[in-house]
């Protein structure tokens, strides 16, 4: 260590407040729409109904933790089918790779809940306290009755939104209308209230006060996504070759050498991340594209072409500097990497859909009882026991017949029998574990060989569809 300052530099900094200005433009409009749609999906989905018959819940999307079922419209996922969820998560991951390598941090800019709720909170803030300048003034003003009134109003509205956000979450885990009434009449379980309150608190703090701090310090995406971008990725950037040297005083001497940027700070003032896009790509930029809208507005006013700040690929810098037109968007987007991601993404998607459709409506598992391997009966026959689990996905009770096939002579008997031999009745939306005995007489080959292959079958008596599982019969061998 060669140098040791007398007063060490500050190791901690306070958050710089950011007052994003209101902006109009095509990206802003698109973002309003996305906000409306995503929030509506989130808040309203639990209240959609879906008729599944008498014994099943009629909520379209429901995560039934106690019953260990996930209902999604016509799809019902049981715990042993969790690979569907795993598949969806992998698809979500690949989708994110795809979008990030093609379009940069579009997730951050448009769809991330942190962005959407922050946007909503800023909207409220602007509505109560006014636009950027008014908010800066209010921030700097001493506490007064007016400041207090504005702040408290804002906080109350924020908190109501936060409460609705936390509230909507719990509706995905129980019958929404019933829970709503329970929550209001104070009859809901404690866990529901604490979940609502915790999520309300995080929404309130993250949307109202933390904002870009969440992205900069808490979220892993900025790091991961930055690593997934390359020179062909389309992302929000400043055409410095066109804008520089920037300058305000257009009438001053030498102004003819200036670039298109008039240094009006519009792009900086609208930025929810509080950065200057003209400094180049930065980790803080969530590519919300609001600076594009802001700059386009200005360019229009001063009669210059739009797009000083724009979605562009770094690879085009050289061409554009040389005065050539940039390569078409598609040639950036379509490159081996994105095609590979799309391919993998679709492959998994198709596989999942395929798995969903070939899913037999009989679901069957066979668990041989291997303690003991076999039982000798008094006449010397050898008996194996199997637990056959049949699940009934439907909303009505079903009767199944259990059978076996094998190259050797074996007999089957079914405990827990229904009205007829070998028949079992499985109640609606339940799994039945039937005890099944398979016996080989002493003179049969299966009794004397160590193991014999067999297949246990289950047949739905109404639809005649059947499903089979291969298993093994243990003999004295």
């Amino acid at each position: 260590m060669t140098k040791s300052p007398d007063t060490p530099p500050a190791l901690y900094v306070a958050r710089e407040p950011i007052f994003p200005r209101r902006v109009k433009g095509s990206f802003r409009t698109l973002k309003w729409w996305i906000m409306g749609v995503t929030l509506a999906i989130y808040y309203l989905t639990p209240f959609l109904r879906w008729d599944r018959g008498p014994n099943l819940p009629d909520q379209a999307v429901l995560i039934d933790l106690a019953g260990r079922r996930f209902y999604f419209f016509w799809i019902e996922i049981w715990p042993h089918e969790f690979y569907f969820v795993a598949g969806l998560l992998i698809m979500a991951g690949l989708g994110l790779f795809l979008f990030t390598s093609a379009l940069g941090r579009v997730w951050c800019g448009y769809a991330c809940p942190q962005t959407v709720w922050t946007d909503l909170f800023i909207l409220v803030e602007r509505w109560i306290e006014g636009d950027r300048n008014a908010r800066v003034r209010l921030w700097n003003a001493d506490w007064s009755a007016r400041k207090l009134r504005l702040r408290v109003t804002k906080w109350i509205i924020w908190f109501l939104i936060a409460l609705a956000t936390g509230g909507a979450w719990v509706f995905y885990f129980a019958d929404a209308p019933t829970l709503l009434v329970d929550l209001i009449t104070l009859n809901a379980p404690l866990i529901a209230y604490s979940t609502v309150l915790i999520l309300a608190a995080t929404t309130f703090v993250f949307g109202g006060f933390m904002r870009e701090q969440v992205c900069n310090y808490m979220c892993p995406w900025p790091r991961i996504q930055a690593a997934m971008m390359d020179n062909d990725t389309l992302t929000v950037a400043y055409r410095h070759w066109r804008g520089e040297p920037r300058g305000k005083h257009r009438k001053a001497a030498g102004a003819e050498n200036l670039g298109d940027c008039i240094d009006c700070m519009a792009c900086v003032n609208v930025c929810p991340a509080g950065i200057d896009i003209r400094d180049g790509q930065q980790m803080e930029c969530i590519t919300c594209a609001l600076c594009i809208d802001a700059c386009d507005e200005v360019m229009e006013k001063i009669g210059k072409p739009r797009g000083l700040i724009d979605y562009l690929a770094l690879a085009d810098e050289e061409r554009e500097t040389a005065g050539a037109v940039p390569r078409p968007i598609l040639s950036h987007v379509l490159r081996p990497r994105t095609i590979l991601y799309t391919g993998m993404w679709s492959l998994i998607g198709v596989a999942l859909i395929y798995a969903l459709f070939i899913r037999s409506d009989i679901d069957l598992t066979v668990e041989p009882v291997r303690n003991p391997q076999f039982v000798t009966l008094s006449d010397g026959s050898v008996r194996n026991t199997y637990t056959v689990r049949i699940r009934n996905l439907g909303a009505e009770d079903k009767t199944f017949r259990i059978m076996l096939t094998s190259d050797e002579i074996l007999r089957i008997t079914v405990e827990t029998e229904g009205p007829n031999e070998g028949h079992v009745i499985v109640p609606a939306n339940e799994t039945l574990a039937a005890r099944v005995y398979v016996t080989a007489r002493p003179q049969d080959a299966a009794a004397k060989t160590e193991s014999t292959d067999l297949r246990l079958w289950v047949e739905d008596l109404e639809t005649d569809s059947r499903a089979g599982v291969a298993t093994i019969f243990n003999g004295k061998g």
Partner: protein
Amino acid sequence: MADNKDRDDVTGIDTTGHEWDGIKELNNPLPRWWLWCFYGTIVWGIAYTIAYPAWPLVNAATSGVLGYSTRAEVAEQIAAVDAQNAEVSARLASADLATLAPDDDAHRYGVAGGASVFLAHCSQCHGSGAAGALGYPNLLDDDWLWGGELDAIEYTVRHGIRNDVDPDARWSEMPAFGEIFEDEEIAATVEYVLSISGQDHDASLAEQGATLFEEQCTACHGDAGEGMRDLGAPRLSDAIWLYGGDREALTETITYSRFGVMPPWGQRLDEAEIKAVTLYLHQLGGGE
């Protein structure tokens, strides 16, 4: 000193002023709220160890001012489950097993609960799969020493076998024929038993043994060796042997006589548990 700021040229970020072999440390200050969160976790950590059991002392840990204990919580949960099952358990305790329908809740509760009772109290001798072992009956097969009907099983479980504790225990004893028979006589009897159970045997010896068997054994094991459940005398004409059915094992059994004991569970288990384990045993595949 305000003027000791040292800026890194490449990144444009201030350094902390620390330098090791020409490598400088950049100063990217943490947000202050992060620091407060960090302090918050320390306060939380300390408060937590005061509120909850935490610090190990010589004999035990501090118990925490909230008086929380995982043990108490488990006890509470068990009590809650017991309370939930109280009704069906009471119904099972007073039920007549023979007429209890298999799809009755009390029956299902019995089978499921009986499996636990079995694992806790019976599996030590009869094995966790109820397949028994040498000298301990297999409870899965269709051969029963004392009967495989529900009430016979229930009686056996309740009173046990050959114990001095319960006056109603099932009781029988085979004499040790080593003190009664000559060696050749034992050998002949063994051959006869081999013959009635359909195994390879010496026919002429077996013929001598037949007379001995008729004189000494039929009283308990029956004329054709079919056994007698009232006395717990095993059937000798089948393929199931408690102590082994080959020549050597039979010789040993006849010479020294062998039998096991079982405790009277009526004194240890409650009524519902006895009925539960009875139902469980009965549905394992051998119940009559």
